[in-house]
């Protein structure tokens, strides 16, 4: 066991973990933050995307021990005082999800994308979400949601 201290969604946690524990399993099983999901075994789907020190990462491809001393934001840390984050609201309003399984990852990656490029074109949104798979929507309304969030932020 290795002792780690990680700030997750604004709260500091100190825990003993096995070094082989993946960050996503630490979040889900030890902290109960099941908003972040696992969709694949190959680091391809992006459903597990969280922010590590403000940048998007696939939490199935990071060890919990690598997050020691760092800051993690999950989909559960976005809303403030019951108010949805603008990107969450845009997905809700533009029907950017169907089954919702890819949505936590899509939203976390969209926020990263908008931080780097506040007013992306459709193509830039598609490229920025290259690491996130959706099996339901055909992506059309996801792109629309991100563009709407970008407009709303202006």
């Amino acid at each position, binding site marked *: 066991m290795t002792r780690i201290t990680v700030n997750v969604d604004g709260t500091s946690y100190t825990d003993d973990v096995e070094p082989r524990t993946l960050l996503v399993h630490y979040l889900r099983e030890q902290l109960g933050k099941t908003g972040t999901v696992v969709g694949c075994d190959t*680091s391809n789907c992006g459903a597990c995307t969280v922010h590590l020190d403000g940048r998007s990462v696939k939490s199935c491809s990071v060890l919990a021990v690598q997050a020691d001393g760092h800051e993690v934001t999950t989909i559960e840390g976005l809303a403030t005082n019951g108010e949805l984050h603008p990107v969450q609201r845009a997905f809700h309003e533009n029907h950017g999800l169907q089954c919702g399984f890819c949505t936590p990852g899509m939203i976390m990656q969209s926020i990263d994308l908008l931080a780097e490029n506040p007013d992306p074109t459709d193509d830039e949104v598609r490229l920025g979400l290259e690491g996130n798979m959706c099996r339901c929507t055909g992506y059309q309304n996801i792109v629309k949601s991100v563009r709407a969030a970008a407009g709303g932020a202006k």
Partner: protein
Amino acid sequence: MIPAAFDYHAPSTVDEALALLAEHDDAKVLAGGQSLIPVLRLRLAAPEVIVDLGRIEELRGIREDGDALVIGAMTPHHAVETDALVAEHAKLLALATATVADPQVRHRGTIGGALVHADPAGDLPAPAVALGAELVIAGSGGRRTVAAEDFFEDLFTTAVGEDDLLVEIRVPKHTGWGAHYEKFTRVVQQWSIVGVAAAVRLDGDSIAEARVALTNMGSTPVRAAAVEQALVGQPATAEAVQAAAAQAAEGTSPPSDSNGDAEYRRHLATVLTRRAVLAAAGA
């Protein structure tokens, strides 16, 4: 899946990391983890000890040293892709790095990890060869420098020994050169079926110098020397570049797989080389 159990060490200096590698027989280095962690999860590897380089500050960052840029092995892809010095002096590397995987992977994956991993379809070995990069390896006997052309020995095999670390990549400055990385894939987030790294220096309208290297046209990156020679002194026109690019597949031994057979790849190499050189020349 979950990796098999291992002991974890996170040293804060290169010397400590080297001592750990010398001490443990079955130790594996962890950089960005974007190739290694998936392999551990699928239990294709189960090392007893992991030595994480993530806390070693001296391995991170990009600086100038005379005629070269020096890039720390642990510098993430995203930093290389967006760095002003790389954009000015080694644009080819920035362009190729931007095609690697997806943004999340580029936030974690490192230049050193991609080079040591040495996947024949990986996008960074060919630009390293094209730009004549030198790789600095630290081992128990001190540091040694290996040219990119000698660094890649075979599929997934480099000059980095089991107890060694790649510490930095020295890239000769190619200031003012045009560059382009042409990556051919069928779907997003895919590895190169074939890729072409090209850099050219123009003198007026004609090509004064050219560097061209190919991704996934053999077990290691291939320098397209015949194309480079044929381009020198030529005008940067579609006809002249096409004639030179026709030699791109010379001396290559590309794989055959579900993405295409060797003959298809040989053809692709000529087409992509034409596109890459023309784009690099701004034509």
